[in-house]
């Protein structure tokens, strides 16, 4: 495989991104920045769910659950000790901890990964619809737990007055890491075994793929970035409540993965950008005609049209050719695997 070309493009893209972030931070007002930040967080979520749902074919609706865990862990760790004492009744060792943003984010991601690992041990024997229902159950358990564990989470009211630590640099860094890891996984033997497992688990097993380990890994890696995204989210909104991490959010992220093309990293990013920016684009329309809610209706129409005319999503399982070494090295281009995107 000729790796030279993509490396150049990657470097150029990453540097271009850094320049764009710097420019945006300097020139744009807070409204635009907040939109771009949310778009970036949704892109992290879509890319990480794409790893679980897209590569490994594990239809998970539990993504917001991991996000909530990461978000709460990050928020509690960064909260100043004085505020902790005011709001919460934490155990002694936790009440005194006050971490900077980066370790707190990583701890949030780690907590989500650990949860995913434990969840995976029990539910990853299931597949298809059964797995979807089981992960949905997980999401509901997380929500109910947060609503009722008042000494740590402050119940339905959630935590507020968090420091506004998230800016475009953090979001961009998170997205870059998520895309990088996804890319490395997709174009490695490990990623190939995930894709093989998605297409035909029996055949993959015959070829020596350890199904269970691969599945747990796919869920756990996806959960890590969901946890980080949750931490970024909490410190962008400066408040975190259990109601945010709902089934509706789970569906929104799944829609992004499906529209982008199940298994396509580029597709996940593009769909996340389109879908999370769309409501803001239609806002002037809503406000001048007082037709509130029209954005949702139009986006639903767009979704239907895409699913009718591009049933395998915008990109299928592929990445655009200019990012990859050559078309033949694309797992998704092979006729036998191309149908994968149509699920």
């Amino acid at each position, binding site marked *: 495989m000729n790796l030279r070309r993509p490396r150049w493009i990657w470097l150029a893209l990453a540097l271009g991104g850094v320049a764009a972030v710097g420019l945006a931070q300097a020139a*744009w*007002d*807070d*409204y*635009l*920045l*907040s*939109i*771009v930040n*949310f778009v970036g967080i949704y892109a992290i979520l879509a890319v990480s769910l794409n790893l679980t749902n897209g590569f490994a074919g594990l239809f998970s609706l539990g993504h917001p659950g991991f996000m909530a865990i990461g978000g709460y862990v990050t928020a509690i760790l960064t909260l100043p000790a004085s505020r902790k004492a005011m709001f919460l009744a934490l155990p002694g060792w936790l009440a005194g901890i006050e971490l900077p943003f980066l370790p707190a984010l990583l701890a949030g991601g780690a907590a989500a990964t650990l949860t995913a690992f434990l969840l995976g041990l029990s539910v990853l024997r299931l597949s298809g619809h059964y797995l979807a229902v089981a992960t949905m159950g997980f999401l509901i358990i997380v929500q109910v737990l947060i*609503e*009722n564990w008042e000494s740590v989470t402050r*119940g*339905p*009211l*959630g935590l*507020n*007055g968090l420091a*506004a630590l998230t800016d475009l640099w953090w979001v961009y860094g998170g997205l870059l890491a998520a895309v990088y890891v996804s890319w490395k996984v997709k174009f490695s033997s490990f990623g190939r075994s995930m894709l093989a497992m998605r297409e035909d688990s029996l055949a993959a097993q015959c070829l020596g793929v350890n199904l269970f380990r691969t599945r747990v890994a796919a869920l756990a890696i996806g959960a890590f970035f969901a946890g980080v995204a949750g931490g970024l*989210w909490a410190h*962008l*909104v*400066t*408040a975190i*409540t259990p*109601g*945010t991490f709902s089934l509706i959010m789970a569906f929104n992220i799944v829609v992004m993965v499906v529209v982008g093309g199940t298994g396509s990293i580029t597709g996940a990013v*593009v769909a996340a*950008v*389109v879908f999370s*920016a769309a*409501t*803001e*684009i239609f*806002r*002037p329309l*809503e*406000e001048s005609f*007082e037709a*509130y*809610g029209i954005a*949702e209706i139009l986006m639903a129409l767009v979704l239907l049209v895409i699913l009718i005319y591009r049933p395998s999503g*915008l990109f299928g399982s592929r990445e*655009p050719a200019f990012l990859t070494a050559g078309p033949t090295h694309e797992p998704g281009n092979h006729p036998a695997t191309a149908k994968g995107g149509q699920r």
Partner: protein
Amino acid sequence: MKRTLLGVLALAVFFLGTGTPWAADATIKLGALYNLTGGMSSIDAPALNGAKLQAKLINEKGGVLGKKLEVIGIDTKTDQKAAATGAQKALSEGVIAGLGYGDTTYVMAAAPLFQKKGLPFVTSGATHPELPKWVGDYMFMVPFGDDDQSFAIADFTVKKLNARNVAVWTDNSMDFTKALSKFYMARIKELGGTVVLEDFFKMGDKDFSAQIARLKAASPKADAVFVSAIPNEAGLSVKQIREAGLTLPIVSGDGFDTELVTTVPGPKLANAVYFSTHTYREDNRPEVVAFVKAYEKEYKKPPENAFAALGFDAVGLIADGLKRAGKVDGKALRDALAATKGYKAVTGEITYSRPSMVPAKGVSIISVMNGKYKVEEVWMPKP
């Protein structure tokens, strides 16, 4: 691929285009953040109607400081993310103050951004008594706090209904209902009463038979039941308690301030229900009468609930503050708002005399007998 690139480019151009704020200072802009779609819309949509009506009436009389008021309605979709970006949008359009929301969750996503910019945020309907403490000195509340409404109905339960043993039902999925029960039980105990039973349900529950069975079996017998619920469960719980043959008084807070309390059980069963709420329903002060008349004229329907009146008051309060400030400036407006004294709002007089900055407003106790609402008394908090 080319098309996608073009699309992305078009998006970028669009963003740049919206980035330039149009600097027209002909009007005084207020950012009204409300959840006009989604679960909160039945509470927030009437509030925005009220707010726009107030602005229109003020503008018909010549506006404020020689300028017209412009209420920019922003839909935040019952979503905290949309609340945060909505607030940023309002700020980028050069508003002088923000207003909005009937629930604390969304205020906490939006108001801190106004605080940071040094512009006041006035909530029309969020009732958590610690809101101003959490957000800061640019946060103002139009309604009373949850503690006041709970204390009012607790006093009424013990002193007027002579109920000493009470049962408490709480919707444990919402912060508002949990807080209400907490303050109610504390006051009941303070007044020498006993909570004989604590029971729970969840928003969306349709069947209360288990709670009713436990209520019947409570020992000592409950003299009254406090149902901490929002409108949907309010109507259903009254209906099912009465259908089970229980005649004890049902008491609650402003979550019961809805037609559903009489329409769901029907006039025969809607009996001996008492709730504390904003002084507005069945009230005949001139402000209230004028508001209802104007609202009916503008929207061809009576005000849906007290939140319409609260939205109306939020704009009125800001306009009053602007007049006293004498200039369009965030700091001056904040100082003027903080000094508000005896502003005659539709939902009662507003004065910020307490250190908590929660207005010491009157709380109406309303009774429902045979499907008819009647104001029993107006409870006044300690100033």
